[in-house]
């Protein structure tokens, strides 16, 4: 294969990453304060929700389906765990207990929509678009009903501490400390405090690594790709396709549930925006930008992560440049279409290899 072909093929396969790097450089030059630990931490923190949602969605899309319900499942879990935390806290339980109970019960409840989705899709043969759309509505309604439109407040204060925590802190005065936020009194010292890697980001990273491993190296992952590639082949190879798909949708709503719980920690309240949720569309966009095909059989967690970072960097960069936020819609719309076009053009080049 000629050198030119090789180069084009490399660009074609890794275009998202290259584009991300390009954007980072561009914004660093054009924007103020873009390139810095603080801003990068901000970007990471801002994309945590999308990272979780998109990772779950990755499994679903690779299997050839789609999950539209994640935005509102997240809201549902957010509200539910907040309510539990609030009520247990008010009832006098220790904060640790309320927080753990709220989180775990929230996540457990969040698995139910995924299970229902899976059953509808596999046993009742409802198309994934419809099933998850129906669940989208139901989750929305339930969440709304639980919170009556108002944010859930009065949560155990420790929750916020966890949400705002970083792994390491560095202060010129007090030096380096792990997990413990140094207590500083002087304004100058507080401003100079370097915060390294938000705790939620670390937790999410661990979660992603585990699931990326499952997807790429374990039988479960292989079967997911197989089902997405050619269902018949998977069936004849002995894969229990219905059961597998149910698990896949449960994974998706598991991630949505985690995102919901995370929101509680980040915002220190349970909130549910009932009118629209564009989260699921951005999650799908991130997955597709990251290299997945909506037909299934392609994609990866790593690709999704890049897709999410791309969207997050774009958001942040546009903001830092002072551009109104709706430009991001135009930008993401274009990037999405380009993503698909590239994936269409480049298989031919790769094929010739």
């Amino acid at each position, binding site marked *: 294969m000629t050198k030119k072909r090789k180069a084009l093929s490399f660009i074609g396969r890794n275009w998202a990453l290259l584009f991300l790097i390009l954007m980072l450089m561009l914004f660093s030059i054009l924007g103020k304060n873009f390139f810095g630990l603080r801003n990068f931490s901000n970007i990471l923190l801002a994309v945590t929700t999308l990272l979780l949602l998109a990772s779950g969605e990755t499994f679903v899309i690779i299997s050839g389906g789609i999950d539209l319900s994640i935005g509102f499942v997240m809201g549902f879990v957010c509200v539910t765990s907040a309510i539990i935390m609030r009520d247990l806290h008010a009832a006098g339980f220790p904060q640790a207990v309320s927080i753990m109970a709220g989180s775990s019960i929230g996540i457990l409840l969040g698995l139910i929509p995924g299970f229902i989705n899976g059953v509808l899709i596999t046993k009742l043969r409802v198309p994934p678009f419809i099933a998850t*759309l129906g669940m989208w*509505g*139901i989750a929305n309604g339930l969440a709304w*009903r639980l919170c009556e439109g108002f944010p859930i407040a009065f949560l155990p204060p420790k929750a916020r501490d966890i949400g705002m925590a970083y792994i390491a802190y560095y202060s010129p005065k007090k030096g380096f400390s792990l997990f413990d936020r140094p207590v500083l009194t002087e304004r100058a010292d507080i401003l100079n405090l370097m915060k390294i890697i938000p705790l939620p980001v670390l937790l999410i990273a661990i979660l992603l690594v585990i699931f990326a491993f499952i997807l790429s190296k374990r039988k479960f992952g292989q079967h997911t790709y197989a089902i997405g590639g050619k269902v018949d082949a998977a069936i004849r190879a002995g894969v229990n396709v219905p059961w597998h798909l149910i698990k896949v949708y449960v994974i998706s709503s598991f991630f949505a549930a985690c995102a919901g719980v995370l929101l509680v920690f980040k915002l220190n309240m349970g909130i549910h925006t009932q009118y629209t949720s564009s989260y699921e569309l951005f999650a799908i966009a991130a997955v597709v930008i990251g290299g997945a095909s909506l*037909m299934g059989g392609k994609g990866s967690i790593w690709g999704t992560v890049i897709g999410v970072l791309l969207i997050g960097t774009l958001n942040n960069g546009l903001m830092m440049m002072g551009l109104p936020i709706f*430009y991001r819609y135009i930008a993401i*719309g274009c990037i*999405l279409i380009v993503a*698909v076009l590239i994936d269409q053009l480049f298989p031919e080049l790769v094929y010739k290899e």
Partner: protein
Amino acid sequence: MMDNKNLRKILIGIAGRWTLIFLALEIIFFSIFGINYFSLKNLQNILLASTTVLLLATGETFVIVTGGIDLSVGFMVGFSGVICAKVMVTLQAAGASQAVAISSGILAALLLGLLPGLVNGLLVAKLRVPPFIATFGMLGIAYGFAEIICNNVPIMGLPTSVGSIGHGYLIYWLPGKIFAFLQKPENLTRLELQNLVSIIPNVTVITAIVIGIFAFILARTKFGQHTYAIGGSMDAAERAGINVKRHLIKVYMISSFFASLAGVTYVLRFITGRAPAGSARLLDAVVAVVIGGASLYGGTGTILGTVIGALIIGVLEIGLVNLGIPTYNLYIAVGCILIFAVLVDQFFPELVRKE
């Protein structure tokens, strides 16, 4: 076995028309338990409130029948609404008469609104971008442009006649005294105003006429037949000599035409142009089409079914408000109806086949 056969016939009869029956039951239910639900005023309100969904769903039907989907229509409403309003306001400020300003605004919105459809069609037909992605990208682009045009602020200050068109009715009838077309009678006493019967909102007339025309096109013309054929088998259509690419482009342009019309009616009704207008209605539109009997895989569906589907949602929404039930239940209900619709559509053909 006579009983079984008859029972089956009845079941099939019901299953085939379940949406219509469901709609009737809904209306009956709310009429009994609601306040003034079954009144001319309220029923017309339902039609008015369902305008956007009716229009979006009709356009969407064409796309879904071909096996695709158009996600951009929600934000297209805002896009065309904003263009419409902006042109109206600008021309008015430049001294043009109301008639010129208003018709220019509407024309501009409808014409420019065809562009996104053209782009969608090109992306899907020529560049083979999956419809989901192409129209998703377009929705973002449309929204972005809409916000740019209106500068993030709803456009106000439209010509006053807009309100009289948008809130106007076709017929005004004062029992025994006045029978007027289009013009609301002036100088009425308070008692007379109370007794005034307004029949058929202008907006609904426009909606009904346009939907009617396109329902005819889909059901009875070669264009409609080819739309179904493409949805059934793109290969078969192509090999039968149908120019599938060109046809798909037209279909996506129809969809965005309806979205722009929805934007125009929005402006007429609310006398403002807002970028996020209609964005929440996209999913209602898709739900309406599916409830109406279309399959997302393409090849089936009718405008009549879609209209019934849209009305089912509209009747439900107004009904819940009328009963004072919080609207979040609407989402739950619609979600369930949607899934039920798909299940019926799946098991119904098997019922027929067994006969």
